[in-house]
């Protein structure tokens, strides 16, 4: 089993595998998106308290989830890379980061768009939004660090170390922000409190989450293939690729 997995740890094998998987992910992702948006915007009923405005959650919640899942995936690849010293792991971690950062930003943006009509302010310092903001900073930090290092081996290792350090701290950060929020409760209400959900709403949210997941994997695979091309450019197998003729 491990042998089977390790075969794909070589950039060449992974390049080919990822290339085969991407079209499927694009297809599945597109279908999921269309289905999710259809149910979310045309089938799911109006909410009693939040009117039509609640429909933002079909984008906000999947974006939040992906921003967190991707950060964990980066930590997993980092751990694998540092343990097994595989080059591909560092490449995958870098490939995931920009997408994660974008989803973190979208989570904040849609969160603000949802919060303003519902609670009157573009930003309220509730625990979830504040944690998401800090997660966004963690992504920016990783991207800044890896952008500043020219040597690819050092870049991968340093990025992996920092990704792990960040991930270990995320639960502590989340816990501390919740604590801080309850300390200063005052008038703040949780912005991300979803309306009591009709089942069509749940289905739409699930479909959109899966859609974003398919998208993220596809984009990360696509990006890692480019990174592989840049790093392994003088390998014979790269020079012989049909797309490189």
């Amino acid at each position, binding site marked *: 089993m491990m042998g089977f997995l390790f075969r794909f740890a070589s950039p060449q094998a992974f390049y080919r595998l990822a290339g085969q998987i991407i079209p499927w992910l694009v297809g599945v992702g597109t279908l999921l998106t269309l289905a999710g948006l259809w149910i979310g915007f045309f089938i*799911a009923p109006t909410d009693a308290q939040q009117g039509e*405005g609640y*429909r933002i959650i079909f984008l906000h919640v999947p974006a939040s989830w992906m921003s967190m899942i991707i950060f964990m995936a980066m930590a997993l690849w980092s751990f694998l890379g540092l343990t097994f010293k595989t080059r591909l792991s560092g490449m995958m971690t870098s490939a995931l980061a920009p997408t994660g950062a974008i989803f973190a930003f*979208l989570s904040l943006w849609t969160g603000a768009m949802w919060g303003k009509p519902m609670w009157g302010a573009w930003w309220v310092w509730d625990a979830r939004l504040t944690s998401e903001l800090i997660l966004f900073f963690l992504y920016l930090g990783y991207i800044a660090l890896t952008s500043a290092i020219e040597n690819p081996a050092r870049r991968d290792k340093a990025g992996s170390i920092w990704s792990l350090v960040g991930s270990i701290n995320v639960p502590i950060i989340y816990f501390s922000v919740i604590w801080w929020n309850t300390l200063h409760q005052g008038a703040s209400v949780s912005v991300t409190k979803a309306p009591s959900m009709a089942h069509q709403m749940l289905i739409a949210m699930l479909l959109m989450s899966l859609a974003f997941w398919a998208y993220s994997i596809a984009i990360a695979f696509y990006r890692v293939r480019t990174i592989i091309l840049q790093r392994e450019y003088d390998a014979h197998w790269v020079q012989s690729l049909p797309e490189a003729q």
Partner: protein
Amino acid sequence: MNWNSWSEFFLMGGYAFYVWGSVIVTFALLAIEVLWVLNARGSALEWVKAQRSISE
């Protein structure tokens, strides 16, 4: 089906700015990311070709 007409759909019960503001920014950013990634691959392939010409 919730909507009686297209204009109702676009109005989103008065929340049009917020809902469409979210939808547009989301899909715009993701579209930009896709274009960026496609472009990066193109540049990388050009570069690989150039490297081969140099070494030949």
